[in-house]
């Protein structure tokens, strides 16, 4: 589904990703872990197409297409979804209107008919239950005045409504208490299917107790320095990132 090859990217003169290669197949969950500043969020933003980042080298294929050539909205229309680490507040645009616009734009791009507000409400009501959100949240402005937990739930709600093929969760666990974490994780797990893939970007192992990954990759200094199964996350938890940062990438490659 996704094939990243020697990806280099950064902001302005500053290179943040220094040669990432990663392959994600349908049905898989990949965890990308790493210390602060390792480039985890940059990877997520670059995959979603944030124009603030510049890709300087490498390729990304998505279902056989050149992902880097696609505008952000085209990526979304093709099934890519990024749950933001810091969801953006949009005063004056209601959550319901925003969600419906996104849903309809994606349907339109895929040759499907748009749904009217009433049909959409039926659909969204079901998804609200999934993330344990109140319907009142729909009439509020997008993320405005939402608590940290509400914002994260709202991201998962959008994900549930838009049902992406490749979901990227960027630090979705940060700032969540344990109950909210469980709700968010359950939401993600319910959306899991053999056709879909998920990349979970996280600093802590905690979330991975609830969303169990097939593969874990450790990022440091803009490179993947270690890859393994879910047990790698537990090792990291135990030994800390210092353990990895002292490992040379070449050793990983031969391991």
């Amino acid at each position: 589904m996704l094939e990243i090859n020697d990806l280099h990217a950064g902001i302005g003169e500053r290179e943040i990703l220094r040669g990432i290669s990663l392959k994600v197949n349908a049905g898989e969950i990949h965890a990308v872990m790493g210390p602060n500043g390792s480039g985890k969020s940059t990877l997520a933003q670059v995959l979603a197409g944030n124009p603030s980042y510049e890709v300087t080298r490498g390729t990304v294929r998505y279902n056989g297409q050149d992902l880097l050539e696609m505008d952000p909205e085209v990526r979304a229309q093709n099934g890519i979804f990024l749950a933001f680490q810091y969801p953006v507040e949009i005063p004056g645009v209601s959550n319901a209107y925003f969600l419906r616009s996104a849903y309809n734009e994606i349907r339109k791009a895929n040759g499907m008919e748009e749904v009217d507000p009433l049909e959409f409400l039926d659909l969204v009501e079901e998804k609200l239950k999934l993330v344990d959100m109140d319907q009142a949240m729909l009439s509020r402005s997008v993320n405005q005045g939402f608590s940290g937990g509400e914002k994260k739930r709202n991201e998962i709600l959008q994900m549930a409504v838009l049902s992406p093929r490749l979901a990227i969760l960027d630090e979705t666990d940060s700032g969540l208490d344990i109950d909210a974490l469980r709700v968010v994780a359950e939401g993600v797990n319910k959306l899991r299917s053999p056709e879909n893939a998920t990349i979970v970007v996280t600093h802590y192992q905690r979330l991975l107790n609830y969303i169990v990954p097939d593969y874990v990759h450790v990022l440091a200094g803009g490179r993947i320095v270690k890859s393994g199964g879910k047990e790698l996350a537990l090792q990291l938890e135990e030994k800390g990132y210092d353990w990895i940062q002292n490992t040379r990438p070449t050793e990983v490659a031969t391991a």
Partner: protein
Amino acid sequence: MSTIAVPEPMAAYRENFERQAEGPDWLDALRREGFERFESLGFPTTKNEDWHFTSVAAIAEQTFHPAMVSSPDVTSEGSTAGMVAPADLERFNFGELGWHTFVFVNGEFSEDLSSFAGLPKDVRVTSLATAIRSGIGRPERHLGKIAAYDSHAFTALNTAFIRDGAFVELQANVVVEQPIHLVFVSEGSGEAIAHPRNLIVAAPNSRATVIESYVSVRDSCYFTNAVTEISLGEGARLDHYKLQRESAKSFHVGTVQVRQARASQLHSFSFAVGGSLARTNIYTSLDGDGATCTLNGLYLTDGTQHIDNQTSIEHIAPNCPSHEVYKGVLDGRSHGVFNGKVYVHPEAQKTDGKQSNNNLLLSPSARVDTKPQLEIFADDVKCTHGATVGRLDELAMFYLRSRGIGPETARMLLTYAFAADVLEMIELEPLKKALEEMVLSRFAAA
């Protein structure tokens, strides 16, 4: 070479002034005072602090002729009304058939185009020309007493040419449920000038909504120079909407000047989208204890438009709250101006004043000048003010795009949201809806 000298614009004003039909003595005297003030003040230049960001040279250098109206010895019926068809006005009345609609063509009342059958009996709306002729309601008690023609050239010019407009009188305690809609339509045969003059007198504890719409049926160059004087008695409440939707080539200067007695409430909303050069002044004076005002506004400019908004709130009496929010969205090579003055006089203790002006620039060549001004001469007051000028938030753009929404729609959504925030404060639901749709379709088309 032509032997006929083209009159200088000022000479033309004098000529037209002298040529006016005579009125009652009090009116002739008032007009004369107005004209003398206009001649001595002259058109303001950018050296004038009140006009620092707005040059009116395009108005001052042009010779306008008086807009076509019926001759004084003929009733208005079937004269100016013939120049505008009822169908022309449909798009300006928001489909609200229950509203009391008074239509003025080139500043002159047109009974044919108006509809006001259900007006309550404790409300009198007459054409000012009729009131002047018949003496009904004695407009001389208020005309020229509120609007400062001694210091404002355009108000002085309007005063020199007082002829017609709306005269709204609310008797004590009357509540007018349906809005009174005053529609000033320019029929738009070029280079014409009209001076609509309105007077709204609200007796104690009366309540009404008045909408002033300035519109045109033709995209031509003309000049509307309007003045509205408003007197609010004790405990009276007026919701006043000024909708400036003039033709793109026109000039518009409109002044609304208000005096507020004790515990009266003014809720003003100014919507400005029209004109090539337009200025709206909303001035109020909180004369009585506990009087309140909210002055809100939205201006949208594009192309080479220049839209200037000036407000002034005089806190004369104590315990008066005043709230003000103006927003501007500027595109193309347009220029927007906001100047909001709040004066707190020494007697005006416990004043609670809030003022903000926020602007969104959609293009690199659009420009806005904002000048919130707060002058406080009392010591026990709570006043805040602030202004912002910004561009569309790139992060918000990316957020929307990452959800499958294309850049044009995303830009439209964010721009609309910025403007809708102030429309949200409009209490008159059908008008709020209509303006929201108007703004949305404007940004959708952009």
